[in-house]
C-alpha cells in the first residue's frame, strides 16, 4: 500500500468537512483510482467531484497518472479568482 495526502480546497473543504486526509491506495494506483476512493469516503462531495480537477504535487494531471507514496493530491473545485 501507499499513502498519499489529499487536500480539500475552497468549496470542497466545506463539503468534505476536513482540510486534509491520508488516503491509502494499492501500489500502482492512479489519480482516477484516488478520485473513486475519495468519492466513496466523502459522499457529500457527490456529483460535484466529477467537475473538480485533481492537482498532483501542485500540477493539474490526467486521471491516468500513477501515484507514488507521499504525493500531495489536491481536490480543486471550479475556481473563482480575479
Amino acid at each position: 500500500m501507499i499513502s498519499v495526502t489529499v487536500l480539500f480546497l475552497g468549496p470542497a473543504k466545506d463539503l468534505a468537512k476536513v482540510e486534509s486526509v491520508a488516503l491509502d491506495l494499492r501500489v500502482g494506483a492512479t489519480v482516477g483510482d484516488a478520485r473513486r476512493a475519495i468519492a466513496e469516503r466523502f459522499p457529500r462531495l457527490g456529483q460535484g467531484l466529477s467537475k473538480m480537477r485533481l492537482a498532483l504535487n501542485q500540477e493539474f494531471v490526467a486521471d491516468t497518472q500513477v501515484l507514488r507514496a507521499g504525493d500531495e493530491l489536491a481536490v480543486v473545485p471550479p475556481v473563482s479568482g480575479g
Partner: protein
Amino acid sequence: MGDVRVELVRGPIPVAQVREFVSGDPSMGGTVTFEGSTRAESDPQHGPLVRLDYEAYESMARRQLERLAHEAVDRFSAGKIAVVHRLGSVPVGEASVMIAVACGHRAKAFEACRWLIDTLKKDVPIWKKDVFEDGFVKWAEVRNVD
C-alpha cells in the same frame, strides 16, 4: 528578454509599485494595466454585498501565475509582466487583482493582458466568498462573464 513579477498579497495591491515594475524600458512602447475590483451588487434577500473573501491553494496559485506570466512573455513578446492577486477580505470598490504588461506595441500588450486575466480566472486555484450586509456568506458562483 522578459521579466515577471508574481505576488499574492494580503491588503491593498501596491498599484504604483506594480506599474513601476513594468516601466522603464524605452523599447516597450505599449503598457496595459488591468485592475479587477469588488463590484457593488445587491441580493434581494441579503441586501448589499459588502466584500469578497478570497482564499487560495497558495503554493500552486503562485506556481501557476508564474507559469502563465512566463508563457505570456513568450506568446506576446512581452518585455515585463506583473500579476498580483489579493487574498483575504476585499471590500467593495477595492482591487482584488492587477495585471500590468509592457510590450513593444499596444496590440500585443492588450492581448497579453486579456489572455492573462481570462486564463487566471480559469486555471489559478483561488476562490472567493460573497459576504453580504446581513452577515450571509456564500461561495461565489462560477460564472463566465466577460
